[in-house]
């Protein structure tokens, strides 16, 4: 078959697809498998006024907040789990420069299901009395057209661009997910099915033969992807299931550095702005640490 179109792109060019003011969904869930190389490049390129719509967020939103890239976040969680609160996010929210729209966790998934369904809303029957309603005029009360029961319509997630990090794809944009996956990887599949501009950073670009051997696991096919970017360790310091674990040491350094704006600017200078590219960043982390983080997927 001649003339197959390559969707391969450099990290810089892929990040260039995200304009200032974009409504962006960042894959991964909480502190797991976040496309952090992409996030660092957003900061490096000085992107502004982004809205992040998500299900559960962590250092993705926190770094963008610390980098001054954000205007608004719509999600159920921003925190670093065992590493504590997200301090840059806190400062931005407490100072009022960052607007936070809170959604319940499963409702935040339902919003992407609405986008997947081509619907402007998802019907939610259990929000009565919750302050999620009080601070969100976009949620509308309505009566079930069949039972008459009072419910609420939450708006679809409607991302303009989705970015996820996965283990492998071919150049045409067929993306594989591990069979022994966990909830964060399923969230990525959902995100990639909720939007027509889908950027996938991957650990490895693989052959068509590899894709065909794993057809059952190609949950995001070529026609759903806009660009494929090869970024080994692209989720670091968060884990990529089956490839590497969380770099808890680096996350502790990150948390320590986010104690003040000044300290975090020094962190950004050292790890985000100064390195010439992603491999220069990885060299700062060092081979020994990267080797130590190895995860093994099921061999079956």
């Amino acid at each position, binding site marked *: 078959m001649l003339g197959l179109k390559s969707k391969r792109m450099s990290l810089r060019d892929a990040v260039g697809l995200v304009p200032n003011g974009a409504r962006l969904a960042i894959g991964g869930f909480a502190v797991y498998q976040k496309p952090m190389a992409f996030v660092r490049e957003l900061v490096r390129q000085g992107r502004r006024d982004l809205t992040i719509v998500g299900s559960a967020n962590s250092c993705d939103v926190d770094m963008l907040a610390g980098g001054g890239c954000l205007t608004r976040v719509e999600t159920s969680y921003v925190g670093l789990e*065992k590493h504590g609160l997200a301090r840059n996010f806190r400062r931005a929210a*407490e100072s009022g420069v960052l607007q936070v729209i*809170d959604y*319940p966790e499963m409702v935040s*998934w339902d919003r992407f299901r609405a986008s997947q369904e081509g619907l402007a809303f998802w019907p939610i*029957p259990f929000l009565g*009395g919750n302050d999620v309603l009080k601070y969100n005029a976009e949620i509308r009360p309505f009566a079930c057209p069949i039972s008459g029961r009072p419910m609420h319509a939450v708006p679809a997630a409607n991302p303009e661009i989705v970015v996820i990090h996965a283990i492998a794809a071919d150049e045409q944009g067929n993306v594989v997910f591990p069979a022994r996956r966990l*909830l964060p990887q399923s969230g990525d599949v959902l995100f990639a099915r909720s939007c027509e501009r889908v950027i996938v950073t991957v650990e490895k670009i693989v052959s068509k033969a590899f894709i065909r051997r794993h057809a059952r696991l190609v949950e995001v096919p070529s026609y759903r992807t806009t660009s494929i970017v090869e970024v080994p360790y692209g989720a670091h310091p968060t884990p990529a*299931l089956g490839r590497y674990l969380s770099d808890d040491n680096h996350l502790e350094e990150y948390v320590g550095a986010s104690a003040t704006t000044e300290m975090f600017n020094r962190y950004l200078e050292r790890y985000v702005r100064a390195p010439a590219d992603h491999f220069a960043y990885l060299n700062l982390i060092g081979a020994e640490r990267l080797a130590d983080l190895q995860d093994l997927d099921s061999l079956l």
Partner: protein
Amino acid sequence: MIAPPPTLHEILATLLAHEFADEEVGFTGLLTGAAAAAFGTAIPLVSMELARRTHAPNLTILLAGCYHNPDLRELEALPDSEHSAMLRDLPSESQMIDYPGQWVLKRGDIDFGFSSAVQVDQEGNINSVCIGPHERPKVRLVGPILQPEHMALFGREYVMMPYHEKRNFVEKVDYVSGVGYPGGLAGRHALALDRGGPALIVTPKCIFDFNRDVGRMIVKSIHPGVSVEALRTATDFELGDLSGVPDTPLPTAGELRLIREEIDPRHILLPNRQI
């Protein structure tokens, strides 16, 4: 030889175990930080496992919401990450990897859950979103996470509060991210919340239940060694007459033995000391 007296964690785990009926499904998240992990994850796990080994062998434990009846003997440490590779490899009877998944959240598959919060008020509302006004909070917290679902879609909720101080037990939470009993059961009904709500509030000082008619917390029992005065001082709302309130009951020798020798012999879940 006399066994060491029960720790607070053991007392709470045993008390909770008595709450569960056979064939129920119990959901615990994965909380981190010593006190939160103990109250939010370890005590719930031990309580459910104790119930399974006594009167409720068919109870289903959902660890981190996803792992059905995990083999706790295979744990080398209390997991400190909700979706870590370690959990992928933990033997269980079913792994939820998608939403919607095995437990049908909105049909009410979960009989009871455990949640935690920074604030709880006398109506049983909980808050993990912010302290102070939402637009310019004094402290921005993590967000509602799964609290709205816990407090509306689960059959009942055990609110596990690792700290019991005035700043945690307030007149009115600054943000209702999980709904208690505003206006009592009738109030919940008016909000179209037809099931669920908090069952007990479990703290290091006492157990709260509710007067569900008026929708107000009441002290059900006070833990051994905690004075009524200390309880009042640590609570920002009025507790009423506490004269008839019993002590929190202690585990039997058999229950203690099960916890210490069968369920957690390596002290991976509960610390091996008084706290």
